[in-house]
């Protein structure tokens, strides 16, 4: 546990000492701010506010910005040869992976925490359902963890950060859009199965509407677990390749 903690602190420190992470946060907050205000202007005088809406937008943006956060996690270490150095230390491979994962997840948590400002403003404008906001944040947090695990897996597979980011984005986009698979597939059982693997269907129709479902929680935790295990296996493969 101590080893994971050391790696975690190192990774988190790297995020806050790198300008890239701040630029990503700037872009995300700017985009979320635009969509949030656009939605408020549209609802004014017509409909009540929806505390989950800025978070659904944030989840959509996560598809693109999470791979930017994870692309360097293992790809950079691979390219610069520092992964070998890490592997010579008295560390288990899973400890390296978990430490890096929790570092990225912690940064993501800080980032989504900044949007509490949006919730506070919404509360100031019109009483909103805080229960829905809480459940939407919980879901977004799990969603972020699963997205980071996906991005990290591709970072472990590649030495090139750009390729890792691109593959991560493509995978997350497919996982998000899989919700619409029913429109293109004739095989309904298969369409339903693929839909059940969609990040959107596991977030937008449960957490984002105020209901925390056990199966959807298991889904995100399962995706995290599976991909972290796969990432560990990829890192471990360097020992026997």
């Amino acid at each position, binding site marked *: 546990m101590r080893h994971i903690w050391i790696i975690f602190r190192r990774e988190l420190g790297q995020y806050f000492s790198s300008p890239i992470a*701040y630029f990503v946060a700037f872009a995300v907050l700017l985009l979320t701010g635009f969509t949030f*205000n656009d939605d408020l202007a549209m609802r004014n005088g*017509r409909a009540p506010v929806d505390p989950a809406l800025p978070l659904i937008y944030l989840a959509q943006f996560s598809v693109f910005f999470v791979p930017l956060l994870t692309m360097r996690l293992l790809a950079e270490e691979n390219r610069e040869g520092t992964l070998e150095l890490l592997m010579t230390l008295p560390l288990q491979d899973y400890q390296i992976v978990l430490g890096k994962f929790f570092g990225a997840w912690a940064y993501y948590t800080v980032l989504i925490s900044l949007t509490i400002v949006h919730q506070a403003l919404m509360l100031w404008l019109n009483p909103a359902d805080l*229960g829905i906001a809480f459940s939407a944040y919980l879901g977004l947090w799990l969603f972020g963890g699963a997205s980071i695990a996906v991005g990290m897996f591709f970072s472990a597979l590649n030495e090139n950060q750009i390729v890792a980011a691109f593959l991560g984005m493509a995978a997350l986009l497919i996982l998000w859009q899989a919700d619409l698979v029913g429109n293109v597939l004739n095989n309904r059982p298969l369409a339903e199965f693929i*839909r059940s693997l969609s990040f959107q269907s596991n977030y937008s129709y449960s957490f984002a509407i105020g209901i925390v479902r056990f199966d959807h929680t298991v889904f995100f935790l399962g995706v995290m677990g599976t991909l972290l295990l796969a990432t560990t296996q990829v890192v471990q493969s360097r020992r026997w390749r």
Partner: protein
Amino acid sequence: MASEQKSQRTIILDRLSVARWSSTLGAVALVIALVALLASGELSPVVVVSALIGMSGLGLWMTLAPEDFRSTLTGRRAVYGSNSVLIILLFVGIVLIVYAMAARSGIAADFTSRGYYTLKANIRPVIEQLSRPIQITAFYSRRLLTNQALESPILRLFSDAAPNKVRLVYADPDVQPILARQFGLDSAYGIFVSYLSADGTPDLNFTVRVLTARDRMPNLPLEEDHVNERWIAEAILQLEARGKYRVLFSVGNGEVNLDSDATGIRDGLRNVGIQVATIDLSREGVPQGTTALVILAPVRDFTQEMADRIAAYLGSGGKVLIMAEPAYRSDIRFMQAEDSPLAKYLWQAWGIRPNRDIVFDPLSYNETQYYVRAAQYLEGHPIVQKDQTGSAARPLFPIAQSWQIATEPPADVVVRRIYTTSPEAFGKLDLREVARNPDRAIREAADLPGPLTLVAAAENLRTQARLLLVGDADWVTNDLIVAFDGQILWTNMIDWLTAFLERVTIEPAFGQLPLSVPSRDLELTAFITVGVLPTAVLLVGLWVWWRRSRR
């Protein structure tokens, strides 16, 4: 020079390279075959051809380079690699099992402050005390999988509340067109509640379609159509009402024709599962099991025998609705004579009788003073409730008579004036004079003074009998029922008599007010969220970059 060398580069094809290329090609072809099989669900030509190419490729690899094949399967990388794959597959299997168990358990926490995904306290007993097990059949086409996902938490509220009494089944009308036709579904979406037969199949004779948002707003796109907890509960109640609620309309005395002039109220009752039938009181008494008897403006007066049958029914706790037109036509005789048996009974047993007048209300009318609009109502009475905000329905009675209510009603009887005219109204007793001078609606000394009772409701506290009297019947005809809250009044009257919908009163799930803020507040919000917050993060980033560059 370099490009010349490149173009002159020879490609050497040896056994090993051909074998490896064919193995790659074979693996790709097998993956394509698998994906095509899963997508189409059948052995299509693409599946077969890809599978053949795949197997041929792998076969070629095994034939041309058996050593390479063997070493790939037994080498160090293969052993470690397959170990890794197996570990991941095992983990995925465990996750899938836990996921399936979690999905089956239906465990969920409702965080909405209004408990939108929690079965309302007054619906739960309805579900738990269902007389027979039911099936909720929800049809969603492939295109509407998202709608299914959005509605499944609401549908599951019912099946989770009583799993042994409520079964939830999803179906695709495109995949099961015969089943959809059996339910009478002709679109991509529809939800039905049915009793289950002894063999476990839905009983189509006892099936009610849940009204959806599109039934209320026909212009709504199919993709936005939806149901809510209340509408599903109402459909279940309608199913439960089938065969249990029976409303009889008296015939044979010149009443309003239910099959031509008042089909709206007849169909309205049938649509909610209430049985509608007719009865000729001159031939038979009101049978047992009748929920309510409706007497819809007869022309001829009822005989003593008929009045006795009504008295017997009310005496046993029956519910009766009488609508009596004033005698504005010479043939209208219903309760117009002083010695009318029914009028005498009503006065003696209930303390109410018709005034035999025509009501004019100079303060509350529509188009003509003959069309009296109810000016006052008994606040809080269920018959006048328009909606859940507490506002009242104000019906219009075209040519109405009023009711006299005894100052001291008979024992155990409570009489209430539900709708009355304004104090300025008056009741003309000389109907012949009104017929001679139809345009002369002036208050005279001989007239009955307002406010006059247009609708009265009486209840016998001992027998639980209920009697509802209305001084007009035109308002329930097809042309007029849709105007001036007529439908609401009709529904409320039937509800009051039969207690049909008393079991379900659900507050609207989303009663939240729309956002309504001045533009300066929105500008301040935009300034903070688009300006201050991202800029602050950017400035910190720039500071970090500047500090790093100085090192």
